[in-house]
């Protein structure tokens, strides 16, 4: 459905050339649900805008729905649906008028356009709003209208650019209900961008992780987590046993790290909080937490605990942490996506 070769886009600003997308090769088959995951400014939207012919590439080529984006953009446009970041509907227009006109833009006759608009208005819960002006709709209602607009001509390939940005979790779940129902009913290929980790994790079948204009990973969320992050087991032991415990963990685990647990009574000391006393220092009697990466962490944990017991190490606490996509991103780039997400919410 999509095939790109060295697709590249540069932007020329006043002082320099910004390489927003640096020669990406993408293949997406019919019926797939693929998400571009990456921080803001990574090149997700730029890639999507090239694939939807909104932005001509600086170099490279792409075939979308059987046509070239550079030589046959009009054919591409007639075969795809696009739901952008902004409001799709004009604010001064009425809901039903925008839907019907969208159908006309794609060459539907009035009767078909009206029937389709009515159908989508029912599925997307817009029936009561048909005569309302778009500017009077709430954010969630507008987003439903955007989706209806993108679906008017029943495209076989649908692009969504940050579809759930600014939505509350409830509306986001609703949006995904609609998208999933759409895929069940007709074999729609869906390509979207997101910087929400949970969204990418729970809904996309395949992820293209993009950073600084380069695709740095391409796999299912489960595979990415297993190969790039892995489960982490951590055990807290008495400081005196720390080297014995490390030796046990090193037998099965990799990427070991040790951190001294700071005594809680130090932290609560009011003198310390004012910054006037000495900084808290770990000592031999303080607890130490040792963690390492293990395959199948939940199964490895009982084994590790038994071995520690054999070695005479008293374990005070133990924990298995299953990785998130943030760990994947962290291991790929050394940066966290979570901070981006928080920043986006505040905006």
């Amino acid at each position: 459905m999509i095939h790109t070769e060295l697709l590249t886009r540069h932007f020329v600003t006043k002082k320099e050339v910004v390489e927003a997308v640096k020669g990406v090769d993408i293949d997406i088959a019919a019926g797939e649900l693929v998400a571009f995951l990456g921080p803001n400014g990574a090149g997700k939207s730029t890639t999507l805008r090239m694939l939807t012919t909104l932005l001509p590439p600086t170099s490279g080529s792409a075939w979308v729905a059987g046509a070239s984006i550079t030589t046959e953009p009009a054919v591409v446009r007639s075969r795809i649906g696009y739901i952008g970041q902004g409001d799709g509907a004009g604010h001064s227009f009425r809901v039903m008028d925008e839907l019907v006109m969208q159908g006309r833009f794609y060459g539907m006759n009035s009767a078909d356009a009206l029937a389709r608009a009515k159908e989508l208005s029912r599925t997307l819960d817009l029936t009561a709003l048909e005569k309302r002006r778009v500017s009077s709709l709430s954010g969630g209602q507008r987003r439903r209208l955007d989706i209806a607009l993108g679906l008017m001509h029943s495209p076989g390939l649908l692009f969504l650019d940050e579809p759930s940005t600014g939505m509350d979790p409830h509306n986001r779940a609703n949006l995904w209900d609609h998208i999933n129902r759409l895929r069940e009913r007709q074999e729609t290929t869906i390509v979207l961008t997101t910087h929400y980790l949970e969204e990418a994790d729970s809904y996309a079948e395949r992820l293209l992780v993009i950073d600084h204009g380069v695709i740095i990973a391409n796999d299912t969320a489960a595979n990415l987590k297993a190969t790039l992050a892995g489960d982490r087991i951590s055990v807290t032991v008495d400081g005196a046993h720390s080297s014995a415990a490390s030796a046990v963990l090193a037998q099965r685990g990799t990427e070991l790290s040790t951190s001294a647990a700071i005594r809680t009574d130090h932290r609560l000391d009011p003198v310390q909080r004012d910054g006037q006393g000495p900084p808290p220092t770990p000592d031999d009697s303080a607890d130490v937490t040792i963690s390492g990466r293990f395959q199948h962490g939940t199964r490895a944990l009982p084994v590790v605990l038994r071995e520690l017991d054999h070695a005479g190490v008293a374990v005070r606490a133990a924990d298995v942490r299953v990785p998130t996509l943030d760990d994947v991103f962290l291991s790929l780039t050394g940066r966290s996506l979570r901070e981006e997400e928080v920043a986006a919410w505040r905006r």
Partner: protein
Amino acid sequence: MAAVSTRTRTAAPGRAGNGLLGDIGAVFLREMSLVLRDPFSVIFSLVQPLVFLALFGPLLAGSVDPAAIGGASPLQWFLPGVIVMICLFGTSTTGSNLLFEITVGSYERVLASPLHRSAILIGKALKELAPLVVQAALITLVSIPFGFRLYPVQVLVGLLILGVFGVGMGAFSNALAIASRKREWMFWGVQQSLLFPLLILSGMMLPLEAGPRWIQVVGRFNPLTYIVDAERALFAGSFSDPAIGWAALAAALTCATGLWVGVRQVARSTT
């Protein structure tokens, strides 16, 4: 991993095609829904030229030497100017609607559709011209009791020339809107700075003949001057005035240049 290496050719139909005219019609209908759903806007747009005619007309009659307006009745002279003015005001501001749509995001949705790029510009300009026909008809009818003589065929030709010119103006206005999308103040700054010199130097409101020589010379380089002259000739019932040919040429050139610049701007508008 579900990636495939081969290009997938789908059996999707080709360009679903309304054709250019169908596209223009679709864009025009969408824009017209704004007018039809809000008839109040039409009423206001009708009042405006009447006010102009009623208040400016008598002032003009009292202050202009009849020789400067070719011995015609002030009404016969002024009315075509008002109609050109309505056309100019309407089409030169149409970009502000586009600017709003760009800001909101709906313009991007329209761009992602298979509509012809020129159809987007022409359809939007036609929306500004449609009320013009009604406005022109109304002020003409109202003027008849005050001594205005109506030549229907000539007036229709005049409106046609004006329509071609207006499509070009609308395209320029939309091109300006796209160019200003990152600093909105620029649209109104440029539009206002160009509109008034263009308007005054066309002899639309006051005859250039009454002004100094240099103004008359500058006016000859203003395409709008030819349009205004031709409208006056046509509204006075003449088909033989050479100004009409020049006006048709000026209108066609404005339209072609406007659409050329406009389509280029549309292609650049998402970068």
